[in-house]
C-alpha cells in the first residue's frame, strides 16, 4: 500500500505543479504600473512554495514507498532527532518570511499607503446593488454634493445630485463605464449605497472593498490601452455574480475627446 501511495502522490504532485509551471491557467496580462511588482512577488512566492511543495510531497512519497511494514527491517530513528529539524524549519521559513514580507510590504504600501499623485484624475465611484456608476467632476473640477434621499435609479440620478440648487453638480459627468487616460494616475473615491461591494480589475492587480458609510480611496495608473472588466467580489446579494462594469483605457487625446463629448450634453 505504501508503495502505491508513494507513486500516486508523486504523480499528483508532478501533475499539479506542471500546470502551474506551464501557466496553462494564469493571470491575465497586467496593465498597471504596480502590476509587474506584484507579479514578481507572486513569482518569487510561487518559486519558494513550489520548491517546498515539491520537496515535501516527494519526500512524503519517498518515505511512504520506502518505509512500509517490512518485518526484516529494524526501526530507525531520524538521525539527530527533532532538534535539527526544528532549527532548520525556523531558519528556513524565518528567512523566507523576512524576505518576502519585507519586499511585499513595500509593494503593499505603494498601493494602499501612499496618497495619489498630484494632479491625478479624480473619479467618484458609487456602487450599488448590482451596478457601478462613475462620476467625473466636469470642467469645474468640483463634485456636486450627494443627497441620499434624492437618489432615483429610475431617472439616472445614481448620486442623488441636486442640479437645480447645486452649481457644482450641474456639469458632473455620470457614466457606467470607467474610462481613463493611458499612463495617467487615476484617483478613485469609492462609495457604496447599500451593501459592501468590491472593486476588482484582475488586470490592474488591485482589489478594494467599498464599504457603505466610508469614502474609500484607491489609485492606479493604467499602462495598456483596452477594455477590461471591473467585477464585484464582495457578496452583495442575489445579483452579486452579475455586478460588473468596464474599465476602458484610452490614449490621452481620445480620452479628452471622450470627456468633452460626455460633458457636452
Amino acid at each position: 500500500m505504501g508503495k502505491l501511495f508513494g507513486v500516486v502522490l508523486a504523480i499528483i504532485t508532478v501533475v499539479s505543479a506542471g500546470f502551474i509551471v506551464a501557466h496553462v491557467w494564469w493571470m491575465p496580462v497586467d496593465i498597471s504600473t504596480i502590476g509587474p511588482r506584484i507579479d514578481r512577488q507572486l513569482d518569487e512566492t510561487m518559486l519558494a512554495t513550489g520548491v517546498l511543495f515539491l520537496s515535501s510531497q516527494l519526500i512524503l512519497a519517498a518515505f511512504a514507498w520506502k518505509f512500509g511494514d517490512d518485518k526484516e527491517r529494524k526501526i530507525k530513528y531520524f538521525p539527530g532527532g527533532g532538534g535539527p529539524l526544528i532549527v532548520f524549519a525556523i531558519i528556513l521559513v524565518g528567512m523566507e518570511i523576512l524576505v518576502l514580507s519585507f519586499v511585499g510590504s513595500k509593494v503593499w504600501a505603494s498601493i494602499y499607503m501612499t496618497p495619489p499623485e498630484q494632479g491625478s484624475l479624480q473619479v467618484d465611484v458609487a456602487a450599488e446593488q448590482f451596478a457601478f456608476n462613475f462620476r467625473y467632476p466636469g470642467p469645474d473640477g468640483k463634485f456636486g454634493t450627494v443627497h441620499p434621499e434624492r437618489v432615483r435609479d429610475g431617472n439616472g440620478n445614481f448620486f442623488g445630485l441636486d442640479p437645480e440648487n447645486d452649481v457644482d453638480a450641474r456639469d458632473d459627468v455620470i457614466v457606467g463605464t470607467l474610462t481613463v487616460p493611458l499612463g495617467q494616475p487615476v484617483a478613485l473615491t469609492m462609495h457604496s449605497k447599500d451593501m459592501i461591494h468590491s472593486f476588482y480589475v484582475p488586470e490592474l492587480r488591485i482589489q478594494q472593498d467599498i464599504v457603505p458609510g466610508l469614502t474609500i480611496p484607491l489609485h492606479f495608473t493604467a499602462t495598456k490601452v483596452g477594455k477590461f472588466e471591473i467585477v464585484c467580489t464582495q457578496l452583495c446579494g442575489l445579483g452579486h455574480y452579475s455586478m460588473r462594469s468596464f474599465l476602458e483605457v484610452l490614449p490621452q487625446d481620445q480620452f479628452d475627446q471622450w470627456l468633452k463629448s460626455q460633458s457636452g450634453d
Partner: protein
Amino acid sequence: MDNTGTSRVLGMKANLLLCFVLLCIVGIEVFLTYRHLSTETLLAFLLVLAFFEAAIAVTYFMHLKYESPNLAWSLIPALIFVLFMMGNMLPDAMRVLNLRVIHW
C-alpha cells in the same frame, strides 16, 4: 471541603476596609469626571482606576491570592492577552471616523 486555608484569607474587617477603599476609588473616579479633563485623559484615568479596582476584587474578594499561583498565571495573562489583541480593531475605528461620509 474547605480548601482555601481559612486562616490565610482576609478577615471580615479587612474585607470591609477593602470595600471602603474601592468606594473611595469610585469617589475619585466621580471626582475626576467633573474635573473637565479631556476625554482621553479621563478615559486613561478611569481605565487605570478600574483595573486597579478589578485587581483588588480579584486578588482579595475572589481569593486569587490564596489559590495556587498557577491559577493566576493561567487566567490573568490569557485574559490580558485577549483584551490586548482585541485592541487591534481600534485603529480601524479611527479610520472609520476619518473616512466617514455624512452621506452614504
